[in-house]
């Protein structure tokens, strides 16, 4: 079964989600996972929907419903299902002066250790660059080696980095 990946990006205003969801509902599309935020003031939303709508038709309907300041894309993607996440979750926090290549260097270091970034937020606030990444590490991963590699990369970049296990309080 295929799903549709829908992105809407552009000028923020009240009502974008309402209009998007209304069109999806008209086309019988079931809105599954979604994520929306403001990125430097821009509206940015990604949705995964299930249903039978033709991607091109849905794209046209969304584009017509939303104004020209918003860019829409609709893409058919294979269903990934619910794959169990194996291993342990860690949170990487980085802050420091903004410069080119912080994400590239640190993400490469994480990837080289077999880490998979499952959630990422970066914020530029004045001169301060902040990166928060949740990382799944496979059971065989060498956490202390990753700690050392991140510390070395951070020293070279002039930023401060921490790597901590994500705390889950099971109730």
């Amino acid at each position, binding site marked *: 079964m295929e799903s549709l990946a829908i992105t809407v990006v552009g000028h923020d205003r009240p009502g974008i989600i309402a209009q998007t969801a209304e069109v999806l509902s008209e086309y019988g599309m079931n809105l599954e996972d979604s994520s929306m935020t403001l990125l430097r003031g821009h509206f940015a939303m990604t949705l995964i929907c299930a249903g039978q709508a033709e991607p091109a038709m849905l794209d046209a309907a969304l584009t017509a419903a939303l104004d020209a300041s918003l860019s829409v894309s609709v893409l058919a993607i294979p269903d990934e299902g619910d794959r169990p996440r194996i291993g342990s979750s860690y*949170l990487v926090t980085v*802050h*420091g002066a903004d410069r080119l290549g912080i994400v590239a260097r640190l993400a490469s270091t994480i990837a080289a250790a077999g880490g998979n970034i499952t959630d990422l937020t970066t914020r530029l*606030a004045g001169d301060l660059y902040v990166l928060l990444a949740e990382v799944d590490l496979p059971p065989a991963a060498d956490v202390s080696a990753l700690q050392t590699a991140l510390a070395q990369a951070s020293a070279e970049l002039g930023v401060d980095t*921490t790597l901590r296990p994500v*705390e889950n309080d099971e109730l």
Partner: protein
Amino acid sequence: MSLSRPTLPVGRVLEVVRAPHPVLSAPGPAVDPADPRVIQLCADLVATMRVSPGCVGLAAPQVGVAGQAFCVDVSSHPKTRTSHGLIVLLNAEVIEASQQGKGREGCMSVPDLTGDVKRAGRITVRGQLPGTGEPVVVSTDAFEARALQHEIDHCAGLLFLDRVSGAHAIYSRKVYLDPAATPPSPGC
């Protein structure tokens, strides 16, 4: 428990440094409570905290000085349960901590962001008073406990950004009126 302090000299209002200033990321050394410069620094921290709207605590690195000194006063904050009024402590450390809970923190040194941080809701802190160097132990809870941990972290070169609870746990600070007319008021 009494936190009676020796009288501090008149404090000067200092400029608060902002991240990514390196002094905020370096662990501060222990300070000499009898050193007149340390006593003046304490007075300056209090004076700077007092003139900063919404500020409930300030640590030495935030005024550009690497050292383990800070002040806290949560007495007029609505989230406060226990309050010791003005606390000025040197070389402080947390010796007991329990009852973890999440709360949203701001910081004058990170003025544009706030973040959700898990901290102990009951703590005991040991430190020294400026001037005499008298050792004191403070046991407290709720917002005063959070403020003390935030300031002790500053003295160790840590920001709340190092302790946020998840990839989505930071937020841009909101203002309720035109930003040009209303500068953001930091939490601590």
